[in-house]
């Protein structure tokens, strides 16, 4: 039996009122996100058939699985970037499925996403990129926004790059600036879509350190989609395996390592698991 959903409603958006007003933090460990029997297809390709899992406040849940199984799709469905074909997705006690863009605003102020390539806006400077969500969510005064830009850049070890354009940054720096933008409006949940893909081992370690640091300092809940086993073992509290259009396993990394699911244990050990039916 899973824990009950946090019943506190998402802050309502009223025209011309700031959306950054937020509720007091809830109890650690309570379920704040719940996927129930979610179905999703793209044309004839079925991605999910009955996806169900929970995310608890304060934890770092890592989602692993083979390439193309739909791990990122799951993150995008949570913040309404993709619509599921069926099932229920609840965030902070409210049903996300069926919400329009306006209704999704308060959800997106509490759940932020770090995109795979950073998705920084090329035409803007680093400072303008970081201010973007603050302006959209009417987060504070212009002076406070300037201060916040410095604060979050310090937090990701990137001071002094405010006036640079994304094209002047390396891949790792882009990820860190994107992370700074993601945390700018103090979200309660951060979704990381392959945060270390394509980076060198030192930068991977640095990003993993940042994820941990953000969890410790800001107390955020994190959902990390990754293939990288270093990331899995560095940041994970709980692991979920996406397999055969649903979640085949949830548990700690240690439980995963000792799992009887051969594909999972080999995946976690960094071995070459195969996707044959008989491995599960």
């Amino acid at each position, binding site marked *: 039996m899973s824990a009950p959903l946090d019943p506190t409603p998402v802050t309502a958006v009223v025209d011309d009122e700031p959306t950054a007003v937020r509720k007091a933090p809830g109890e650690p460990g309570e379920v704040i996100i719940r996927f129930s029997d979610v179905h999703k297809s793209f044309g004839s390709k079925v991605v999910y058939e009955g996806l169900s899992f929970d995310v608890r406040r304060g934890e770092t849940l890592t989602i692993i699985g083979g390439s193309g199984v739909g791990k990122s799709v799951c993150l*995008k469905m949570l913040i309404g*970037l993709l619509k599921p074909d069926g099932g229920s997705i609840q965030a902070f006690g409210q049903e996300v499925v069926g919400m329009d863009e306006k209704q999704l605003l308060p959800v*997106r*102020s509490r759940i932020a996403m770090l*995109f795979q*390539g950073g*998705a920084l*806006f090329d035409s803007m400077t680093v400072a303008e990129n970081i201010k*973007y969500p603050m302006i*959209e969510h009417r987060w504070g005064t212009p002076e406070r926004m300037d201060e916040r830009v410095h604060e979050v850049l310090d937090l990701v070890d990137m001071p002094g790059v405010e006036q640079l354009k994304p094209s002047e940054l390396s891949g790792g720096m882009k990820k860190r600036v994107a992370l700074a933008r993601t945390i700018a409006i103090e979200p309660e949940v951060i979704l990381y879509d392959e945060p270390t893909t394509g980076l060198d081992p030192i930068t991977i370690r640095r990003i993993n350190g940042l994820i941990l640091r953000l969890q410790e300092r800001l107390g955020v809940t994190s959902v990390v989609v990754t293939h990288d086993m270093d990331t899995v073992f560095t940041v994970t509290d709980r692991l979920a395996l996406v397999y055969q259009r649903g979640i085949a396993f949830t548990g700690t990394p240690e439980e995963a390592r000792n799992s009887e699911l051969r594909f999972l244990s080999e995946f976690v050990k960094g071995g070459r698991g195969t996707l044959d039916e008989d491995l599960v």
Partner: protein
Amino acid sequence: MDGFSGFFGALGEVAILTAQTLRELVRPPLEFKLWIAQLDQGGVQSWSITFLTAIFTGMVMASQFAIGLAPFGASLYTGKLVALGIVRELGPVLTALLVGGRVGAGFTAELGSMAVTEQIDAIRALGANPVRKLVVPRVLAMVIALPLLTVMADLVGCAGGVFITMAEVGITFRFGVLQMIETIGVPDMLHGIGKSAFFGYFIAIIACWVGMNTRGGTEGVGHATTRTVVWTSITILVSDFFLTRLFLAVYG
């Protein structure tokens, strides 16, 4: 069958994008900064290509008519024909085709690149509306800029026509200008400018829709850009016929 359903599906999506654009256009706060940036990029920066095309078109038309009308002793009417041809037809259509190629391709390349690098998803995830941020400024810029560029093309094309008529037929500059002013009425101007506002809308909405629906990485961006140039050109040429019939019915 796929072709037909694909075509009507695309038409429906463009119609929905148009409705969303109109809704976001009037919803405060208005994003003047973005509008002006696009007016500059799409309009101001297109003046040189428009100028060059218009002046040479006027000169070529005058050369052809001056020689073609000579056997009938009608060379003195060269200026009238050039003026009517440019103001009613060639000014708006050629400007739209050129600006459509230049600006439409640019819109699609930019939005397509944003789509394949998840920047459009990021706009939504960060609490903004991509139609409001990306489509409205571009559509508005083109609907305003294209008629203005067309007026410039009309003036420059007529000037080119006058100069060649002076050289080929031997008229004075004053005669040439007065002849053109006498020939072109307000309905002729409205005919051309009205069409160009529609062309501006077609260019921007097609370019934005194709750009925002781009898939398949950089290769996809290339295909999308090509598609935009083809589709905007065909739309301009086909709609020109229907718009011409419409404006003829309205203005004569």
